[in-house]
């Protein structure tokens, strides 16, 4: 092969590879285009103010209302319940694994936790609907069969390994010297962890929390199966609610004609969901870059 053909071939290969990399940008562009295109048609019929500010979500009714707040509160309610489980538990586990646990415990505990992250969400939905909620109903009288609490708790269990492993990364990124400095001053491991390591790892921990929030907000199957499909502006975890994702599933499964406002609403809701999670992801990314010893 002559040097010339070699250079041509190499150039061709390099361009192809970059084209492959650019596909990922196309995916993002595709997502934005599809969502914006369909949502634009939706906003031609429903004003953005009515969408974002309205308190009633009844897109399929006689007198349709497209106030997305009930879906947003439903989503946040479930996500907050999940965070109440996942953040303290995940942080405790992270502190325990990185500061206290013996090597065998760590070597067993970490992959065992990872298993939790690998279980498909439809399985968690099953667990929430047919195990957790029935059990909760024996404890909490008046708990509806479909509610925000059960799926919220299960969702918390699902994102727990994410929180714990990211927090642990953040903790172990703290230079050893800081810790040893604290020990040298006679601090206990807890004092070292709380007084020195945690503050130093704060940006990493916050990044983990925000990423977990993004995951919780975007989770679909658990809430579609076990949270009910009742858009409701409430902070009561005992009653059925509907999340943004569950609404999209509901419409996808149901009998909604395609060129109706109600159908286009799934793209408007999708756009809101995409924007929200994107904001959270970017925030998390930004914080992670501020971790001590962050690479790149």
């Amino acid at each position: 092969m002559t040097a010339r053909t070699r250079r041509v071939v190499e150039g061709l290969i390099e361009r192809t590879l970059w084209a492959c990399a650019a596909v990922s940008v196309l995916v993002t562009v595709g997502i934005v285009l599809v969502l914006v295109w369909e949502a634009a048609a939706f906003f031609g019929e429903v004003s953005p103010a009515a969408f974002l500010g309205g308190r009633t979500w009844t897109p399929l009714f006689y007198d349709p209302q497209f106030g997305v707040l009930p879906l947003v509160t439903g989503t946040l309610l479930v996500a907050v319940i999940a965070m109440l489980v996942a953040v303290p538990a995940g942080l405790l586990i992270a502190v325990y694994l990185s500061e206290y646990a013996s090597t065998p415990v760590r070597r067993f505990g970490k992959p065992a936790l990872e298993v939790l992250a690998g279980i498909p969400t439809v399985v968690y939905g099953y667990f929430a609907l047919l195990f957790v909620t029935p059990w909760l109903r024996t404890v909490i009288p008046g708990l509806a069969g479909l509610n925000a609490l059960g799926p919220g708790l299960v969702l918390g269990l699902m994102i727990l390994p994410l929180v714990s492993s990211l927090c642990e990364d953040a903790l172990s990124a703290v230079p050893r010297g800081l810790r040893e400095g604290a020990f040298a001053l006679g601090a206990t491991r807890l004092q070292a962890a709380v007084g020195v390591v945690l503050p130093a790892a704060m940006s990493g921990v916050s990044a983990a929390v925000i990423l977990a929030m993004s995951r919780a907000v975007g989770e679909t199957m658990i809430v579609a199966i076990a949270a009910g499909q009742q858009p409701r502006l409430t902070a009561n975890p005992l009653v059925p609610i509907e999340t943004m994702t569950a609404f999209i599933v509901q419409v996808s499964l149901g009998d909604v004609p395609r060129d109706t406002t109600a159908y286009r609403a799934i793209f408007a809701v999708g756009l809101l969901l995409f924007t929200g999670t994107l904001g959270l992801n970017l925030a998390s990314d930004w914080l992670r870059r501020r971790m001590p010893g962050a690479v790149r």
Partner: protein
Amino acid sequence: MRRSRLLPACGLVVVSTLALAACGGPPAPVRAVVTIDGSSTVYPLTEAMAEEYHRAVPDTRVTIGVAGTGGGFRRLCRGNLDVATASRPIAPAEAAACRTAGVAFVELPVAYDGITVAVHPSNTWVDALGVEELRRLWRHEAQGRLLRWSQLRPGFPDREIHLFGAGADSGTFDYFTGVITGAPRDSRGDYTASEDDNTLVQGVAGDPGALGYFGFAYFEANQEYLRAVPIRLREDGPAVLPTRDTIRSGEYQPLARPVFVYVNARSLDRPDVRAFVEYYATHVGDVANDLGYVPLDDRVHAAIRARLAARQTGSLYGVEAAAPARTLAARLGLDPP
């Protein structure tokens, strides 16, 4: 040594995806499939027929989707569906869309379906409900206002009423709201809505203050956990309990209706579609009973099979599609109007 295997693969995928986009669609499947889509209410029936047929003729391929009655009609009238299932007759606008697209269909009522209004078995205070009472309970004006049993009828206990009903994107919702509140889709929104009748059954079965509506099939399958409420069509009329007999005879009004399959007339030229649909029309009575639908009576059944054999296209229902007043037999000309 080979220069590269990764690269051609990479290029191939990109190129083939683009080529696909350029051609605008897939080639015909290797083996023909009878495609069915539509009502979730009719799904159990259609599934059963497909299953029995699959057992009899194993190499026929049938797929069933549950895009809903409207979704089924849309696909049918776009010409990319063989059979649409429906829990209501085709609407004039939908039929017009079919005509515009040049799609003719054969309309086949296949069974009756009743909507059951049910309460918790421990509910002792509801003897029967009138349509007017149901209207006051379910219309959108009741939202946030009619919240207690005592508000529905003086004398009912002063406790919260918890409502369960079909999801707003189901045929059952369309039908129930249409006949009860008077306008399709006119409904209050503060109730537990689900596409999944099982969810509703569970909800009502688990809540002594509950009232819900769903398909008779689901009620029948779970009747040990539920109590059906007799319905009074007129103030002075009799209260009718939903049973197979009352549904078939037309006594249980207005909450009983026929369900349909609509076959693309062009698809009937294909032997696999014709064989399946004929099997469906012939044997539907055998399984309808088991599934809690009410089978057509023999006269109607025979008339329907004759329609299929003759490939008679068009709908028995005109502009008054939603009005259930005329029985099937009357529409088919078997009874005087």
